[in-house]
């Protein structure tokens, strides 16, 4: 565990909300359950109680980070021995700083441990997504559609579908170059959003806002052209 000398949450997510974001929920607070109250009190106490609480919190966060690492183990078999756990430890260290920095933001609307776990899962997921793309170039936009079966092959044009063809055309005519680049990378080429944010020196939240605006523009244009955009709900 690294010493707690500074408190900074890596701004993975910061951005303006999507334009159609529902009104932000009121910043309600709830009375803390006894276990959560004990966590918060001990983390605000003086030494040595606080030191012991921080050590327990780090254990909890490490459990969360290792859980995330375990879920991704199969896709990260190329890592050197021990590297996966090193990343989990680093994620737990960073999550600890984030939790302590945001302690005043804990509203008691969930258990404290649930609230803390999400920081560990975020830190671990972001690090592991980036690690899996560390030695890979983000594909260039040109040629992205050619990798989609049927999209560039006249022999399969009928199977490709009218709507998908219209989407492709509308992406070319209605989106800004930046919107198109982001949409192609995230939706067509499967680049993880944290990886693209890193390469473009922006944040995940800002990138999602761009993606959201591009999708809304596409939907507007296609609806105006008479296309039925009811795709049903995504399968879980």
């Amino acid at each position, binding site marked *: 565990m690294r010493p707690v000398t500074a408190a900074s949450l890596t701004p993975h*997510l*910061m*951005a*303006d*909300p*999507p334009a*159609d*974001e*529902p009104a932000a*929920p009121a910043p309600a607070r709830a009375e803390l359950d006894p276990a959560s109250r004990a966590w918060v009190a001990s983390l605000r106490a003086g030494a040595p109680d606080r030191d012991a609480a921080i050590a327990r919190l780090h254990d909890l966060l490490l459990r*969360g980070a290792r*859980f*995330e690492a375990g*879920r991704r183990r199969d896709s990260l078999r190329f890592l050197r021995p021990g590297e996966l756990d090193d990343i989990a430890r680093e994620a737990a260290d960073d999550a600890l700083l984030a939790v302590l920095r945001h302690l005043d933001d804990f509203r008691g*609307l*969930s*258990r404290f441990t*649930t*609230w803390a*776990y*999400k920081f560990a*899962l*975020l830190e671990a*997921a972001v690090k592991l*997504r980036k690690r899996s793309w560390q030695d890979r170039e983000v594909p260039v936009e040109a040629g992205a559609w050619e990798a*989609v*079966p*049927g999209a560039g092959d006249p022999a*399969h044009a009928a*199977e*490709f*579908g009218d*709507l*998908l063809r219209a*989407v492709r055309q509308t*992406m070319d005519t209605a989106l800004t170059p930046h919107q198109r680049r982001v*949409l192609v990378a*995230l*939706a*067509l080429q499967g680049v*993880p*959003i*944290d990886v693209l944010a890193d390469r473009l020196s922006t944040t*995940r*939240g800002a990138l*999602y*806002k761009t*993606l*959201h605006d591009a*999708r*809304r523009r*596409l*939907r507007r244009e*296609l609806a105006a052209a008479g296309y039925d*955009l*009811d*795709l*049903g*709900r*995504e399968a879980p």
Partner: protein
Amino acid sequence: MTDHRNDELLRRLLGPAAPEVGCETCFDELDRYVEVELTGRDPETVVPGLGAHLDGCPACREEHDSLRALLAAE
């Protein structure tokens, strides 16, 4: 290419139709949302728009699924 694969690609390109929260709000509310889900209640009643965001944002979906699985495993 099958219709199913077309639909999946279209969903990725067009995103959810319903209004959605952004990544930051999703993170802020994720713990409450998952706990409500695990009680069997409809989490959309407490955080409207978060489900649509999970449909449109694979990264937030992964983190949601991990938190849910972690809590369920405890």
